[in-house]
């Protein structure tokens, strides 16, 4: 414990440097604005900002991008509550009861509880990250290729089971993402696959053009022609104070959301989006008056908001301890630090303590900055929503082109972004989830390498996965999820999606 405390002090000595504080603040402000803008979620925001971090040192780069990440989480809740527009996907559940509270004149307390819940969850999850990541990193030293293969496959199954739509469709999208990751030079044989003579494709398809296309451009295509959003309410500081009852009702959901979100966040393959769905379902199930949900229940805001912020932090555990991104956002952040020659993985914490602990300490700082920013300044931030969308979306389009081009000064990347945007638009029209494509693309090279290494180790026998206890455990979890997904089809019962008001699709 004393060692953790000493390390944390080292972290604060890094995070409280004026330059790092300034970048944490800038990241939080940019993130809040990005989260509020429809069409620019945290992933697109971080991807667009990535080129700007190339000239910075790795600590500042990761602090800035992390600030954007959890700033976007906060920002997304503001538009969800005030306008029923989820600035980013994780805020979808907040829309339901948050907007109902706004209609009843309780927008202020909803915003305050969302911010307080996010702050508490963010802080608790940083404590958990601080304690868990070093332990996991030492445990991960026992991982060989079979364990990594099992972990990645389990992650994809968890994502498929927990995603808002059909497991079958999610698995299909993950497979499509894995196939996209096959493009480019094969690391083991040197063959260039599926590049069709385009030199830029021999490096593979980058996550940034895919992420900006699928999550930014497709959103613009879906919303650009739609009617003007409803007028924005601007709560005053006094109106933000929740009542005693609202505070008491929120304690349980915030605590449960924090724990649940963190646990979901650390599993590779799952995401902050899922955690808010699950938290909403849990709160509705645990409530004595579930009929209040959908009509302005404060628990429906407190739980999901805490969960998505906690999951955002939890996602950093495998990223920092194992070097495995749990989703597209952490993948872009990994790319940001790898540009600087830092190799994430089990050795990062011991070899680069100032980076790891500086980052952890900056998260505490970021949470405080966001609480200060989001409560008193909410009236200022919502002014952004007064800009007519007909002006906003063409400039976001230009930002998408600029951001993607900037990463590698390649027009091919911008074409990929456009193609992925159109493809993402069609997929969303057909009710497909896009996150598995991005995750598959990121995990593809690691999965292929670890699978082929496992087979080479065993002389071509898949039984190697059965001889390794950690791998077996992970495969059992994956199999259990498949069985759970099949249960509603066999017994004609409802699955967890029905509990949170999502379509049950099997």
């Amino acid at each position: 414990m004393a060692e953790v405390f000493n390390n944390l002090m080292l972290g604060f000595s890094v995070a409280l440097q004026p330059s790092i504080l300034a970048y944490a603040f800038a990241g939080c402000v940019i993130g809040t604005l990005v989260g509020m803008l429809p069409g620019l979620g945290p992933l697109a925001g971080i991807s667009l900002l990535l080129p700007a971090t190339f000239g910075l040192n790795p600590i500042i780069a990761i602090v800035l991008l992390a600030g954007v990440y959890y700033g976007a989480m906060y920002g997304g809740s503001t538009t969800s509550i005030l306008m029923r527009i989820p600035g980013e996907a994780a805020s979808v559940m907040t829309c339901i009861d948050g907007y109902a509270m706004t209609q009843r004149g309780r927008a202020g307390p909803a915003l305050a509880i969302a911010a307080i819940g996010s702050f508490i969850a963010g802080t608790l999850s940083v404590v958990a990250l601080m304690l868990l990541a070093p332990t996991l990193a030492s445990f991960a030293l026992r991982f060989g290729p079979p364990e990594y293969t099992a972990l990645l496959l389990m992650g994809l199954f968890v994502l498929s089971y927990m995603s808002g739509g059909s497991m079958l469709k999610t698995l299909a999208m993950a497979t499509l993402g894995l196939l996209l990751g096959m493009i480019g030079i094969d690391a083991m044989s040197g063959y260039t696959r599926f590049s069709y003579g385009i030199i830029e494709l021999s490096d593979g398809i980058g996550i940034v053009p895919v992420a900006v296309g699928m999550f930014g451009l497709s959103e613009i295509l879906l919303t650009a022609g739609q009617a003007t959003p409803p007028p924005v309410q601007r709560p005053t500081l006094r109106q933000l104070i929740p009542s005693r009852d609202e505070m008491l009702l929120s304690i349980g959901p915030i605590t449960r959301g924090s724990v649940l979100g963190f646990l979901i966040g650390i599993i590779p393959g799952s995401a902050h989006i899922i955690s808010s769905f699950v938290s909403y379902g849990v709160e509705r199930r645990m409530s004595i008056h579930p009929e209040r949900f959908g009509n302005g229940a404060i628990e429906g805001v407190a739980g999901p908001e805490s969960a998505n912020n906690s999951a955002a932090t939890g996602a950093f555990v495998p990223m920092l301890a194992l070097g495995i991104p749990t989703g597209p956002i952490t993948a872009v952040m990994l790319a940001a630090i790898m540009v600087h020659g830092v190799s994430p993985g089990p050795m990062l914490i011991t070899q680069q303590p100032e980076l790891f602990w500086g980052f952890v300490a900056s998260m505490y700082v970021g949470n405080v900055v966001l609480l200060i920013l989001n409560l008193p300044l909410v009236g200022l931030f919502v002014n952004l929503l007064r800009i007519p969308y007909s002006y906003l979306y063409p400039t976001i389009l230009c930002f998408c082109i600029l951001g993607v081009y900037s990463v590698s000064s390649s027009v091919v990347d911008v074409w990929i972004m456009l193609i992925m945007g159109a493809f993402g638009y069609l997929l969303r029209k057909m009710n497909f989830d896009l996150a598995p494509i991005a995750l598959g693309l990121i995990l593809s090279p690691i999965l292929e390498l670890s699978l082929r290494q496992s087979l080479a180790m065993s002389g071509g026998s898949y039984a190697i996965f059965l001889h390794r206890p950690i791998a077996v455990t992970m495969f059992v979890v994956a199999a259990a999820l498949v069985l759970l997904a099949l249960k509603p089809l066999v017994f004609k019962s409802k699955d967890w999606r029905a509990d949170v008001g999502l379509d049950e699709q099997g």
Partner: protein
Amino acid sequence: MNSPQAAGRGQRGLRGDQLSGIVLVVIAVMVAWENRVYPLGSLAAPGPGYMPLVLAIALGAFGLLIALRGGASPLLNTIDWSETTHGTVAMIACGVAVFALERIGYRLTMIALLVFMLGVVERKRPLPILLVAVGFAFISYYVFATLLRVQLPQGPWGL
């Protein structure tokens, strides 16, 4: 109000999941066909064609199951495509802009794209269009190219 599912239930016609399932199967077949040039290797030493083939088979199987189970999904003609025209115009404009980017430079391309989107598509008044287009092009160039030292293409007259 009826959901697209409810609206399309009991009617005949191609459904969203049936079409998307078929498309996935087609993609899987195409990948498997293209993959034939890469050595599969053996189980003990899988070649570069091994993993793509496994994934193509998995994608084909998922696509087939999606198509077979697609009877309950909305009919294609009940899906709202009202924003598609708007989106298509935006995509074509972006495509032209990408084509022009390295030929006429970043700033001129952005000005042209914003003038087209705001003036022709959104029918805004000339002064705001000019302010937004020129302001965005020059401010973003200054921030990215000058302050952050990101390489952005220059066109004629150094623009």
